[in-house]
Structures are given as structure tokens and as C-alpha cells.
């Protein structure tokens, strides 16, 4: 039974190469919790900005008539991965986990798997 803070802490300690993580409400763009980041990566700014990414994708799927849910969104930069994982569940109505990874140290498949696990713990 993890709370939001513990889940984020776990995300940044368990996942190799994690630079920061945030739990974001995607309607308002508010970070309900954030850990890591620092001056190179302002997670509250990233949180608000990435809600537009999620909303654009949701809208596109509606336009395409795709009856499906987004599980995660991967953004690959030159030196970082940004991973957005949408949470399901009642209270988690419209939330996503945002994870920034160092590309050189991260194992992407492993990170996705661990993020999925953290999500399930968050909701139990």
C-alpha cells in the first residue's frame, strides 16, 4: 500500500537512470507529487507541459475513432527518455506518472516494466 510519495521515491530509486518523477493530474496540469529533477529539469513545468502532450494524443485517438486506451507515451531526446504512463482507476481519474531517464544509464524495457509495477502498487 504505497502512497504517492513512496511510489515516486520507488520510481526514482528502483529504476536505473531515473532523473526525476512526478505524479500529474492531466486535466489541471498540477504535479500532485514530484521527486528529483533539480535545476536542470523543473518537474512542475514538465508536468504542466506534458499534459498538453497527453491531451493532444487523446484528441487524436478520438479523431481516428480508436477505441483504446493509452498505456504509455515515450519521448526520446538526445540524452534522455521521458516516459509518461497513464494511470487507471477511480481516484486516479486522469492522472499520469512522468519519468525522466538518463538515456545512457537506463534500460528502457526494464523501466517500463517497473513503472507498470509501481502503478499497480499505487492503486492497491
Amino acid at each position: 500500500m504505497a502512497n504517492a510519495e513512496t511510489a515516486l521515491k520507488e520510481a526514482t530509486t528502483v529504476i536505473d537512470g531515473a532523473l526525476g518523477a512526478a505524479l500529474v493530474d492531466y486535466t489541471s496540469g498540477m504535479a500532485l507529487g514530484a521527486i528529483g529533477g533539480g535545476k536542470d529539469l523543473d518537474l512542475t513545468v514538465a508536468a504542466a507541459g506534458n499534459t498538453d502532450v497527453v491531451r493532444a494524443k487523446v484528441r487524436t485517438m478520438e479523431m481516428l475513432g480508436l477505441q483504446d486506451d493509452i498505456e504509455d507515451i515515450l519521448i526520446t531526446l538526445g540524452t534522455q527518455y521521458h516516459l509518461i504512463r497513464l494511470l487507471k482507476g477511480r481516484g486516479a481519474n486522469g492522472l499520469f506518472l512522468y519519468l525522466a531517464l538518463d538515456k545512457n544509464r537506463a534500460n528502457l524495457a526494464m523501466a517500463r516494466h517497473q513503472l507498470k509495477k509501481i502503478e499497480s502498487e499505487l492503486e492497491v
Partner: protein
Amino acid sequence: MTGGVSPLLRRLAADRATGALVRDHGTLYLVDGQVVHAESPVAPGLDVLLAGGSDRRSAARPHGARARRIGAGEREICRLGALFDAAFFALAPGRGPARFRYGAEPRLAGAGRPVPAAAVERETLRRRELLDDVWPYPALDAAPVVPRPAAPGQSVTARGRALLSRADGVRTPAQLAWVLGRPAFHTVLEIRRLAAAGLVETPAPAPVPDPAPVPPSGAAPTADPPDIALLRRVRDALEAHL
């Protein structure tokens, strides 16, 4: 919009005060200068949010989610969401002066992490700016929501559809929030987005005092200011087509 939301809140936070900050549209409860709870008649409380609203239709959720026990994580997330939601409305500019009742405690105290007053203030300001960025018509926030027909080919998100289907021309955004069990700010924001897309009527702004009558002369008439709302709607409709 610059400056603080509430100078009194800042002072109370600096003094590490404990009690209730009572404003026109809600109450903030502080312990040691940190916000532990917020209430507003506009914003649905934690119980409403967790129950999924009063609407029967929204009760039909997949996977029997309503029957599920609520985990600690989920509850904490919901509590934080409700706190910031109520705080946004409680800190809305009011007419009367704010009062502080020292030592007052919330009736429905939700145990959880206290939030720094500065974080509540910052988030409230960010939300005000966000609303203005989306569609700068504050009159929408308290007016009955009147849906407009979608343009051919225009798509609406599932969340938007859920709102529109319950907008009967009488309910305000806050009332829709209670019906759907969503935070009130989220509903206000969604309504502004829908209005920007032309899917909800934007109420006429408060009448502007008549400009000085133009003397009938040979001078070239000055152009009327452009109707931004109309232009945006035309642009959105065009984008939806192209």
C-alpha cells in the same frame, strides 16, 4: 493577477498559525501555517469525488471499480486533489474581508500530508492563468452551461462528451462537477476548453460602456474591434475541416 492571492494567508503561514481562514467562497484550515484541509461550497468534497458523483450513469463503470476498496495511495491522491480544488475557489477574489479563527479545526479532517501555504498559493495562481490562457471568459465559470452543436467532423473527447451530455442549460459548471464527481476546477477548465472549441455558448461579457459617439464627419470610420471569440471559432471550425 500579479502579487499574492491572499496577503493574510502569507502572514498566517509566516506566523505558523493554526486555525481557519474564512473567506467568501470557502475556508482554508491551517496547522502550524500549513494547509491541512480546504472546503468550498463550490467544490465537491472527497466523499463525492470517491463516490463518483450523484449521477446514476457515471456509476456504470467498468471492472466493478466502485465495489473495489480504495487504496491508501488513491485516497491520498484524491484528498490532495480535493484540497487544491477547494482552495482554488476559497482563494477566489471575494468582496468581504477574510477572517481567521484561531484554533478552529475542520469538522471532516482528512488525515494526510499538510501542504505548504506557498504551494497552495502558487497552484491557485497557476490555475487562474491557465483558465485565461485557454479561453479568457470568466463569465463562463458560474453561468449555466449551454451546449452548441458540434461542427461537422469535429470530435469531442470522452470527458467532454460526459460533461456535454449532462449540460441541460440550467446546471452551472460547479453543479456538473457534483453530478459527475469531478473536481470543480477541472469542470470549469473543461467548460472553458469546450467553449473555446465552440461546443459551449460563451455568455456575452458584461456590457461595455458606450464609446463616445463618433461625430458625423467626413473622416474615415474607425474599424470595430475584431470579435476574437468569433474568429477563434471560425479558426477551430476550419482546423476541424482541414
